[in-house]
């Protein structure tokens, strides 16, 4: 590993964050974790509260830089002889069996005390209604979450790669560089399983292939 490798940036919470009452809001709304699922509170900080049971853990956070509110539910798995955390966002847990828009799920971010209390209560309600199988540590549900995460991650990465290839194809089209047009659209077709060429892109690809063939006659 290179000594120049870097980590993604993180932001430390400021001293005044405790005034927003995040910890109190979480304690007031997430009590069901202890009552119904046997969790215990193991960590309380101005922007982070964690509960653990024997098999699973729940992180409730108020983003240190983003002020985004969120819930992660996870388990411990053995990897290369060590126990590591595998965790999933509440939205992903809900999306496993439900349409997020039908549920009304959305991301929350706030730097206000009153909305913070309301949003934390809403997150707790969703966790209680839709999270029971992961809170109980059901292995099959966690495996499904991992598979869903793989699909989403691949689709995101392929979407970005497609953006770059489309830009390259567009630029090549204007330059009448038919070979590069074929390369770029062909790469999307051959390697990006979650992306489909648009009708206009297929037409460009066909045209470029015809021009290349004509040139070689």
């Amino acid at each position, binding site marked *: *590993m*290179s*000594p*120049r*490798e*870097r*980590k*993604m*940036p*993180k*932001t*430390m*919470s*400021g*001293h*005044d*964050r405790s005034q927003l009452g995040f910890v109190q809001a979480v304690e007031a709304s997430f009590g069901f974790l202890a009552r119904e699922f046997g969790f215990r509170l193991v960590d309380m900080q101005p922007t982070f509260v964690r509960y653990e049971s024997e098999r699973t853990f729940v992180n409730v956070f108020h*983003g*240190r*830089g*983003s*002020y*985004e509110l*969120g819930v*992660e539910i996870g388990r411990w*798995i053995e*990897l290369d002889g060590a126990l*590591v*955390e*595998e*965790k*999933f*966002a509440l*939205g992903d847990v809900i999306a496993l069996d439900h349409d997020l828009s039908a549920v009304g799920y959305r*991301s929350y*971010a706030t*730097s206000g005390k009153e909305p913070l209390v309301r949003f934390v209560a809403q997150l707790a309600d969703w966790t209680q209604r839709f999270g029971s199988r992961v809170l109980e540590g059901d292995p099959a549900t966690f495996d499904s979450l*991992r598979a869903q*995460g*793989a699909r*989403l*991650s*691949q689709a*995101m*990465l392929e979407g*970005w*790669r497609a953006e*770059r290839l489309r830009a390259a194809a567009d630029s090549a089209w204007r330059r009448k560089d038919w070979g590069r047009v074929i390369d770029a659209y062909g790469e999307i077709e051959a390697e990006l399983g979650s992306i489909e060429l648009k009708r206009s892109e297929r037409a460009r690809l066909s045209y470029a292939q015809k021009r290349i063939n004509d040139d070689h006659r």
Partner: protein
Amino acid sequence: MQAPGALGPGERTLLDRLTPDLGSPQANWARNAGVLRDEMASGAPIRDASVNPVTGDLENDTGFLRAERYLLQDRGRTYDPKTTFWSPP
């Protein structure tokens, strides 16, 4: 990330450059994006810490993290799930 062992050999954290909380998401994002652009300019690979530990797939793609990833890919960096690094073009 501050826990012992959270950093691999040869890695360093950017935490010291990201304090304190500036009091609003906008101000914090402006600062974070600036730090990230500086790091990208250095050409060093950047490890994504919010990934599935088994598959390397990207997780928690919301808020600042999504914006940071977008910034990375917008500057031509590509993510490799096998190494969990964003590498320069």
